[in-house]
C-alpha cells in the first residue's frame, strides 16, 4: 500500500508468461476458427447429470422419472428443434433447444450469450462517477434498480450516508420503475398468449411512467439518474401532481385489467397449471423475485435486507400458491398495487433538503457556484475528469429488482476506478428454471412460460 492507499503492483511478483492471446502480442496472421457450437448443442446422448438437468429433474431426482432416453425410444418420434435466438416470443435473443416427442417437450436447454457486451470489463475502465451509465444498460426494463444497486455499493465502500430526500427520491423512482417493468411483463405475457389488447394497455400505462422519468431524468431509458452520493437532479416542478395522476390511473386501470383477465376462461386456461415450479427447486437454483414468491415463499429483499429507508413505508409481500404462470401474473399485479402504495407514501412524506451529499469530493458543485468560486471550478473539473477515489475494500449489495435479487459485488483498490465490478443478474439465474417448468408440457405453452419468467436478455448476458 502506498500513502495514497492504493494497491500498487508488487515488483517482486512476476510478469507472467502469457498463455493466452492478448492484443498487441499476436502474429500478423489472425487465425480464423470455424464456428463450433458443438459444445452448446443438445446431444441425443447426454451424460446423466446433463440429461437430468435438461429434463428438469435434478432436485426431484429421487422421485423417479419414467422418461428415459435409452429406453424404448423410436428415433422417428424424437426431434430436437431450435427456438430462437431470433424469435419474437423469446424476449430478445434467447435460444432454446427443445427435445420434442410429437407436441410434448421432454428436454430443454437454454443457450445464451447473444447479447453479451462485456459490461463487467467495461466497468473496470470507467470511473465510479461513470459507473451508473454502464450498469443502467444491463436490465433495460429496470435501469434505475441497476443504478441504485451500484450506487449503494460505492457508498458503502465510501462509508457515506445520503440525505433523506435522496433516499426518498430513490425509492420513489425505483418503485415507479417496478410498476413500469411489471406492466411490460404483463403486457408481453398477454401478447405471447394472444391477448393483444392487454399488450396495448400495458404499454400505454408504462408510457405515462416513462414520460415522468423523461421529465425528471431527461431520458426515457438508461437514465444515469441515481449516482453515488445521491441523485443527479431534484424532482421536476409539479412532480407531486404527476405522481398522483400516475397512481390514480394505474389503480383504476388495474381493476379493468383484472376484469379483462382474472376470470377470463381463455386466459386462465392458458395460464393455470402451466410452467409449475416448486419452492425447493427455486431455492436450489437461486431463483428469486416473483417466480420465487409465486411458489409460496414470502421472500423480498425490501423486507429481509431493507435499503434506502424502504423499511419506513408500509407494504405487503404478495405470494402465490401453485407456482404456475397464473400465480406469477397475479403476484406481479399485486406487487404493482403495493408499489403504488409505497409511491403514495413517499410522495406524501417527501423530506425537504438536499438531494445529494454535500461533499464536493463526491458530488459536483451547483452550477451557479462554478461561475463564482475557483475552488468549485476545480472540484467540478476533477470530478468529471478523474472522478473520486474510493478506499480499498470489497462489498456485496443486493436490491430487489422486478426480477429478483440484483446484486453488485464491488472491489476498489483505492483508485478512481473499480478493480472489479460484478453484477449478480436475477434473469441469469432465473433462466435455469426453464427446463423444470417446461418438461412434459406442450410446445404451445412454451411462450407463456418464458414470458411469465420475464427474462431480460440485457440482464442475462450483460
Amino acid at each position, binding site marked *: 500500500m502506498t500513502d495514497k492507499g492504493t*494497491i*500498487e*503492483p*508488487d515488483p517482486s*511478483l512476476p*510478469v*507472467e508468461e*502469457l498463455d*493466452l*492471446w*492478448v*492484443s*498487441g502480442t499476436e502474429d500478423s496472421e*489472425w487465425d*480464423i*476458427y*470455424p*464456428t*463450433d457450437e458443438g*459444445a*452448446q448443442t443438445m446431444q441425443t446422448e447426454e451424460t446423466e*447429470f*446433463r440429461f437430468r*438437468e435438461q429434463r428438469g429433474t*435434478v*432436485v426431484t431426482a429421487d422421485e423417479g422419472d419414467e422418461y428415459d432416453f435409452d429406453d424404448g425410444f423410436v428415433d422417428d418420434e424424437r426431434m430436437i428443434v431450435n427456438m430462437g435466438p431470433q424469435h419474437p416470443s423469446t424476449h430478445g435473443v434467447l435460444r432454446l433447444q427443445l427435445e420434442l416427442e410429437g407436441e410434448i417437450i421432454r428436454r430443454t436447454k437454454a443457450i*445464451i*450469450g447473444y447479447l*453479451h457486451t*462485456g459490461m*463487467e*470489463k467495461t466497468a473496470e*475502465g470507467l470511473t465510479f462517477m461513470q459507473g451508473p451509465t454502464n450498469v443502467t444498460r444491463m436490465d433495460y426494463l429496470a435501469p434505475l434498480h441497476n443504478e441504485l444497486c451500484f450506487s449503494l455499493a460505492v457508498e*458503502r*465502500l465510501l*462509508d457515506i450516508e445520503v440525505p433523506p430526500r435522496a433516499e426518498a427520491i430513490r425509492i420513489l423512482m425505483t418503485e415507479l420503475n417496478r410498476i413500469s417493468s411489471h406492466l411490460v411483463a404483463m403486457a408481453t405475457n398477454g401478447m405471447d398468449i394472444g391477448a393483444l389488447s392487454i399488450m396495448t394497455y400495458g404499454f400505454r400505462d408504462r408510457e405515462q411512467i416513462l414520460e415522468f422519468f423523461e421529465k425528471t431524468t431527461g431520458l426515457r431509458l438508461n437514465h444515469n439518474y441515481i449516482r453515488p452520493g445521491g441523485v443527479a437532479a431534484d424532482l421536476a416542478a409539479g412532480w407531486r401532481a404527476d405522481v398522483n395522476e400516475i397512481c390514480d390511473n394505474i389503480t383504476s386501470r388495474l381493476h379493468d385489467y383484472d376484469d379483462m383477465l382474472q376470470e377470463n376462461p381463455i386466459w386462465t386456461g392458458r395460464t393455470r397449471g402451466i410452467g409449475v415450479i416448486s419452492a425447493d427447486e427455486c*431455492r*436450489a*437454483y*437461486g*431463483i428469486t423475485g416473483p417466480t420465487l414468491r409465486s411458489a409460496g*415463499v414470502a*421472500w423480498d429483499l425490501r423486507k*429481509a*435486507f431493507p435499503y434506502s429507508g424502504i423499511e419506513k413505508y408500509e407494504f405487503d409481500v404478495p405470494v402465490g400458491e401453485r407456482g404456475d404462470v397464473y400465480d406469477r401474473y397475479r403476484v406481479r399485479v399485486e406487487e404493482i398495487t403495493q408499489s403504488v402504495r409505497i409511491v403514495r407514501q413517499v410522495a406524501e412524506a417527501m423530506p425537504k433538503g438536499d438531494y445529494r451529499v454535500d461533499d464536493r469530493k463526491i458530488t459536483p458543485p451547483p452550477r451557479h457556484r462554478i461561475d463564482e468560486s475557483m475552488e468549485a471550478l476545480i472540484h467540478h473539473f476533477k470530478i468529471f475528469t478523474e472522478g473520486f477515489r474510493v478506499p480499498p*475494500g*470489497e*462489498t*456485496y449489495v443486493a436490491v430487489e429488482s422486478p426480477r429478483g*435479487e440484483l*446484486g453488485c*459485488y464491488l472491489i476498489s*483498490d483505492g483508485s478512481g476506478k473499480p478493480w*472489479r465490478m*460484478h453484477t*449478480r443478474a436475477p434473469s*441469469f*439465474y432465473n433462466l*435455469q428454471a426453464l427446463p423444470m417448468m417446461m418438461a412434459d408440457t406442450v410446445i404451445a405453452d412454451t411462450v407463456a412460460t418464458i414470458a411469465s419468467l420475464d427474462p431480460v436478455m440485457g440482464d442475462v*448476458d450483460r
Partner: protein
Amino acid sequence: MSPDPLEGLKERFTELDWHLSHGQEVVRVEREQLLEFATAAQEAGFDMLADVTAVDWYRSREPRFDVVINLLSMSHRARLRILVGLARDDTVVPSLVPLWPGANFAEREVFDFFGIVFEGHPDLTRILMPDDWDGFPLRKDYDTGAVPVQFKASHKVS
C-alpha cells in the same frame, strides 16, 4: 427459529480466517476444505447460493485468483461470503453444483471469463462468449484494446 447458522460454523471452523468486510461476514477457505465447509454451511441453513464470481489480483497479490461465493440463508436472513484463493498455474477448484444445482450457470460464467476450472462440474463450457474464443476476457492481462472481430469471413474483406 433455529440458532444463528454463523455461530455453529464459527465454532466448528475456528481455525479459518473470519473477518467482517463493511459489516458482512467473510471467510477465507482453503481449496481442499471448500467442499467440507460448503456442506456444513448448507446444513447450517444457507439454503441458497446467491452468486459465484472471481477476482484477478494480477501482480497485486498472491495467490492470483480469488473465487468469491456468496451464500444466502433465507430462513435466518443471513449472508456469508466465501473466498477461495487460487494460484495462477493451478486454477482448479471443486464445483458446488452437487450441493446447489444453481451454481451451474455461474460457474460456467467464471470459467468463461477467468479460465478457472470447476472440478466435477457436469457441463463446463463457455456460456456467454463464443465457443471458439481465445483467452479469458476478465483477466487483468487481457487487454481491452483492439480485438479483431471474430466473424468467419472477416479476413476476406479488405
